């Protein structure tokens, strides 16, 4: 395969030496901009390098996410790390290998075609030559730009790609370390930040004496504008100050929220930018019509460990360690917020708790940076309180999706309208002016008005709103609500989960009109053989043919999507028992990820997505009340627990030599839909609003 155009990461960072360094100590350093956020990506990227260069994995050191030494690959998001970052690295390695082989051929007076590489050493006609990447490195310059003209290895020559290599980062994490939370620098001080309860609120009074008393130890109160931080050598003291502080702070201009604002329906009453895409509106007189509305409320990323960062200002240079999704975007935001030259800031990625999108990592990093800027020479560690993580992280937006179809005489849809009400999923929430500390530091810049495109592929609120099915006419009406009651940003899959949930539940409803089985109905609308294959496989795994009449209390339901209509395919079947609550008993999943670099890592992502989506559907809703988010800990924001975990069976289709497809988000929508359809089958009545609470079960049966 010879690429005509370079993948984005490589086009942005074309120099080969930005990615690969054969070092004098006999090791290979591979530098990448995509970062480990719990998904195993750095291991998969190491596999790609090992395979393409024929270097043992054990000789590779990965450097990931570093504004000094690693390429700028933007954010680690959207299931693109393999599709774009991996494709870039593979091309870099193929090209570097060719450069080294050409040099070896000159040295050995042979032609490159007679040379091969094994374990990093050059072979001539299968025999050792005494040369390796490392012996040749002084003669070979990788300070050259990629051309994209060197073909990557064919499938048959691959040894490391496609193998379930163990995660590189797991041993340290099982030994008690490995996270930014665990960093301890000499003289480091622990800090906590008092949060502005709502945008626009101003700090009228702060009883520092009372907070000091509660803290019970040596502590500094740092104030700059309405930015307030508590610094102490003792983390216990800093935490006690933070716990006590809200009661001793009086804010003015705090607007009040109500629980109704937390419902998706509230979006319909807010100002919206209305966009229309797709087929023109058409009237189909005489055809059978059906419409239904589905919703998801605001949900939280709710990483298990609250956000944390360490920052240190030394000799005018600011160094930040953060579990952020993108070190370069963070550097830009911090520079803007603190009015620093980006060149005077270094951001190192460090591991954090699981990241499922734009959480509070950026905010915590700015907190630490703002404090470090004001206390030069002192390393500062900021850890958010759990209550602040729930209270102030950017949320996944509520969404309302209304579908309306006209059916042809054969019962299949001839016309479909998808109408979406949604807050921002991306929309500039990482910009300097959108970060929390910026709002309260002196002279805050005006908050940006969020905006995001409506184009559906990949889209944001419109993601996966275009059916992957054969429907002659489809249109999207997108009501983009730029200012929902709470700050929202990217959460795993963006609009895909609500949109796939809506569409796939709606398909089951449409199938009823022609008394068609839901699997058969889908297959009658699906042309892509890979899509058909996962649907058929998941149904077979689940023993779909045993599915009986609706209303028995036990249900079987299916959901399918191809993520972004161009990434990983997943079909999921869920089995539920519905009594007082929904009990998810079993899940079957068939997925097609193309070439899976690390099959076990892929399955881990697919199944993690299944569990997380199940948790969203069955349990989760951020409660808005009073001065913002009222659900501030796990008792008021419950998630799925161990005794509620279903048996999950996952099959990865043989992707052959098809390009690798991102899988981090592809099971979310299909799982939500499968549960929705299984519950409808169990009850003989449908619940269209997440989460599926007891009240909604009772209401559906009434």
């Amino acid at each position, binding site marked *: 395969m010879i690429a005509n155009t370079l993948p984005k990461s490589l086009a942005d960072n074309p120099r080969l030496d930005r990615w690969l360094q054969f070092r004098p100590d006999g090791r290979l350093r591979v530098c990448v901009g995509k970062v480990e956020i719990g998904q195993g990506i750095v291991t998969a990227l190491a596999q790609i390098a090992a395979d393409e260069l024929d270097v043992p994995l054990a000789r590779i050191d990965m450097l990931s996410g570093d504004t000094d030494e690693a390429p700028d690959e933007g954010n680690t998001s959207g299931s693109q790390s393999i599709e774009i970052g991996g494709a870039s690295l593979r091309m870099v390695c193929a090209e570097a290998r060719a450069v080294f082989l050409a040099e070896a051929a000159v040295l050995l007076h042979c032609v490159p075609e007679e040379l091969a590489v094994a374990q990093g050493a050059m072979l001539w006609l299968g025999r050792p030559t005494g040369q390796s990447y490392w012996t040749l490195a002084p003669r070979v310059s990788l300070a050259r730009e990629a051309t994209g003209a060197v073909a990557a290895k064919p499938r048959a020559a691959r040894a490391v790609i496609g193998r379930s290599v163990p995660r590189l980062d797991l041993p340290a994490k099982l030994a008690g370390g490995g996270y930014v939370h665990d960093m301890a620098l000499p003289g480091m001080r622990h800090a906590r930040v008092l949060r502005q309860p709502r945008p626009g609120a101003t700090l009228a009074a702060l009883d520092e004496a009372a907070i000091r008393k509660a803290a019970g130890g040596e502590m500094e109160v740092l104030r700059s504008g309405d930015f307030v931080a508590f610094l102490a050598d003792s983390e*216990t003291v800093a935490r006690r100050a933070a716990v006590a502080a809200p009661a001793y702070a009086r804010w003015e201009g705090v607007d009040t929220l109500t629980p109704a604002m937390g419902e998706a329906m509230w979006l319909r009453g807010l100002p919206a930018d209305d966009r229309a895409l797709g087929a023109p509106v058409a009237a189909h007189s005489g055809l059978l019509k059906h419409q239904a509305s589905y919703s998801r409320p605001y949900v939280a990323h709710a990483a298990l460990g609250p956000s944390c960062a360490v920052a240190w200002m030394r000799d005018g240079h600011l160094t930040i360690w953060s579990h952020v999704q993108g070190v370069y975007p963070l550097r830009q935001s911090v520079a803007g917020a603190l009015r620093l030259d980006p060149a005077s800031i270094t951001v190192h990625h460090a591991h954090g708790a*699981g990241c499922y999108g734009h959480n509070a990592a950026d905010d915590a990093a700015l907190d630490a940076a703002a404090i470090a800027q004001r206390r030069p020479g002192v390393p500062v560690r900021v850890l958010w309180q759990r209550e602040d993580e729930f209270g102030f992280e950017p949320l996944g937006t509520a969404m309302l999706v209304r579908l309306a179809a006209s059916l042809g005489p054969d019962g299949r849809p001839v016309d479909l309208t998808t109408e979406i009400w949604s807050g921002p999923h991306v929309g500039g929430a990482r910009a300097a002016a959108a970060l929390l500390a910026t709002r309260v530091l002196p002279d805050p810049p005006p908050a940006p008005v969020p905006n995001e495109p409506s184009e559906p592929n990949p889209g944001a609120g419109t993601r996966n709103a275009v059916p992957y099915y054969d429907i002659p006419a489809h249109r999207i009406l997108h009501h983009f609500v730029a200012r929902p009651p709470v700050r929202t940003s990217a959460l795993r899959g963006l609009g895909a989960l609500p949109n796939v949930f809506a569409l796939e539940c709606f398909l089951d409803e449409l199938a009823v009109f022609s008394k068609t089985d839901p699997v058969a109905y889908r297959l009658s609308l699906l042309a892509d053989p890979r899509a058909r294959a996962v649907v058929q496989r998941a149904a077979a795994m689940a023993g779909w043919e045993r599915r009986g009449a609706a209303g028995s209390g036990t249900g079987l339901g299916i959901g399918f999507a191809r993520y972004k209509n161009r990434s990983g395919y997943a079909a999921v079947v869920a089995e539920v028992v519905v009594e007082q609550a929904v009990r998810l008993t079993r899940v079957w999943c068939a997925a097609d990820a193309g070439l899976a670099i690390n099959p076990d890592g892929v399955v881990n992502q697919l199944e993690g997505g299944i569990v997380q989506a199940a948790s969203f559907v069955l349990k989760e809703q951020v409660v808005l009340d009073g001065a913002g988010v009222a659900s501030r800990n796990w008792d008021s924001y419950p998630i799925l627990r*161990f005794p509620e975990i279903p048996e999950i069976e996952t099959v990865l289709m043989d992707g052959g030599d098809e390009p690798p497809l991102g899988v981090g988000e592809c099971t979310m929508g299909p799982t939500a839909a499968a549960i929705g359809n299984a519950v409808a089958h169990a009850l003989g009545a449908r619940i269209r609003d997440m989460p599926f609470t007891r009240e909604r079960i009772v209401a559906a049966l009434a």
Partner: protein
Amino acid sequence: MTDRIAFTLNGKPVAPRADPTAPLLDVLRNTLGQTGARYGCGAELCGACMVLVDDVPAYACSREVGTVAGRVVTTVEGLAGHALIRAFLDEQAGQCGYCLSGIIVSAAALLAANPSPTRAEIAAALEPHLCRCGAHPRILRAVAKAAQMLREGAAA
């Protein structure tokens, strides 16, 4: 207001100087350099801080360090040679891994009391623990596998 508080940590005697009302978690992490127990919620709701005190799971975020004087405290670092660590690596049981230290601590207590737990019994023992990445199926398998390794080791 600080005292020397003597206890056994991961098999070794320690006597950190600490405010006896400080959370055990802070003393473990910041004074004794054992970072395996983690802050998650501060309210006994997530299990990320779980340690063993005299072989019984305890939340280190809310436990005052003064109360462990003279007792035996075990963190995940003290379980380095335990079959659970091998089993979690074998099963690649984790994604971000933040929850694992606490889960392994509770699992060790379970296996000490019940060498052949069922899936439901493992899930019940891990009920105090949250995992946000959805690695639960692997974690349940890994604990069952560790139990099997221990049984086979005991029989050998």
